[in-house]
């Protein structure tokens, strides 16, 4: 994974841009602190940030795993049954159309303020892109392959599993790459709605205490976490797609 180092270049470019904005627009530090200030905050609060980052990471990973599973399962259900499709599809869109923010308080009231409300939020937010992309892929199987499988006497279930699913792996990978980026957002939203730890909580707290540099330090850690997750998932997906020939 030598490629993991390459984002350093754009990261540096971004840092320069950031510093440039701070100078050029004479940004006050309480709106956009300079990279140096944020770095200082990052170092002097390293332990604190690391603790909260660990909490968020656990939520994100659990949410990613469950959300990807749920999304993939939904896409499969919709792909096999036109009935399921016409029933689930609008419901699927609904899960996204109702902003999680609006539902979050309700869900939190049910699930309490522990880990699971954040995991659920991450699941909710990645469920749709995974299901949607995978489903699109499943519906685009080259007809020659399904014709062949049908003549071979394969039951629909096995056609799905051995032909349509492998053919849709690139589309699923596309969805998973999105999910890797969205899962952290879901967890953060969950933390904003109610939590006592995690990067989202830390950001709120820092903002409330007017420690904008700490807030940005947490933000940076979150961004780096997301980037790494996106890379890891992308790498795994690339391998899977390559294996699909």
């Amino acid at each position, binding site marked *: 994974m030598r490629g993991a180092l390459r984002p350093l270049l754009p990261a540096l470019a971004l840092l320069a841009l950031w510093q440039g904005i701070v100078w050029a627009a004479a940004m006050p530090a*309480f709106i956009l602190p300079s990279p140096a200030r944020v770095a200082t905050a990052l170092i002097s609060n390293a332990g604190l940030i690391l603790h909260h980052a660990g909490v968020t990471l656990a939520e994100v990973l659990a949410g990613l795993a469950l959300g990807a599973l749920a999304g993939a399962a939904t896409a499969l259900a919709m792909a096999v049954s036109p009935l399921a499709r016409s029933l689930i599809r609008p419901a699927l869109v609904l899960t996204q159309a109702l902003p999680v923010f609006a539902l979050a308080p309700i869900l*939190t*009231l049910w699930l309490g*303020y522990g880990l699971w409300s954040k995991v659920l939020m991450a699941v909710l937010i990645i469920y749709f892109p995974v299901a949607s992309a995978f489903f699109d892929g499943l519906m685009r199987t080259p007809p020659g392959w399904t014709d062949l499988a049908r003549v071979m006497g394969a039951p629909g279930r096995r056609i799905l599993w051995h032909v349509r699913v492998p053919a849709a792996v690139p589309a699923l990978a596309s969805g998973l790459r999105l999910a890797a980026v969205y899962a952290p957002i879901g967890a953060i939203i969950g933390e904003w709605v109610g939590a006592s730890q995690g990067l989202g909580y830390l950001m709120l*707290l820092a903002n409330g205490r007017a420690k904008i540099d700490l807030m940005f330090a947490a933000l940076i850690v979150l961004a780096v976490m997301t980037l790494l997750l996106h890379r890891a998932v992308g790498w795994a997906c690339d391998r899977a797609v390559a294996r699909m020939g």
Partner: protein
Amino acid sequence: ADRMTLILDWFVNPDHGPILVAQELGYFDEAGLEVEIIAPADPSDPPKMAAAGKADLAVSYQPQLHLQVAEGMPLKRVGTLIATPLNCLLVLQDGPVEEIADLEGKKIGFSVAGVEEAVLGRILGTAGLTLEDVELVNVNWSLSPALMAGQVDAVIGAYRNFELNQMEIEGRPGHCFYVEEEGLPTYDELIYVANPETMDADMIRRFLGATEKAAQYIVNHPDEGWALFSGTARELQDELNEKAWADTWPRFSVTPAGLDAGRYARFEAFLHEAGLIDEVLPVSDLAVDLGAE
């Protein structure tokens, strides 16, 4: 007329009575002002906008002001909107918590603003408890629902003029422990803040004069005041706002420009003691009495 921009702390609600009534009665016009009122959803934004010079004036909270100035934000209190605390520790009226000491081992919900732990620590201290004796849960967006749904046993950060009425309407009445009666130095809940370097003191003086007239009008004619206030937007006309109005108008500062320097010094000392600020600043760094200048 001079144009000025005012950012409220949140959406328009009865707390903003004097501002809207001044607008309705033309007091701003009389003072030669054309006031644009902006309502944000995140209460932490307005002081930033004022400090950044994007707004001439912002509505904010005294406790936050201390933290913000300590962090170097160019802000000063220039006026007072609500002259008492609104914050309270809210429990269910028929719930298990009858006095502060009953909170031991209970869950307390809060909405992150920055000072909750200090406030709670002081309140618990009056009953010989510490923060270690309770479990704190951030319930950000929904204080009273979390309480009514039984997710927490108490919440801090609820407004006495608002959440109490809300709970009553929902049929789960609450009980309020007033923070200033439980050991906390009293303070101004809602204040006007501005960037002292860029502010136009004369314009702000005129603004405060107009809201002073409006506050007096409301105190003298609370029902007409309600009619004027609720007439500004159809969304405001409901039972909750009407009840909240009755609990709010007595708390409007009728001397919005006037500064009680002692309040600010005492609260600064309290926050320093709680470890939220590193050094104690003089009141002149925090607040200004524009009338005295």
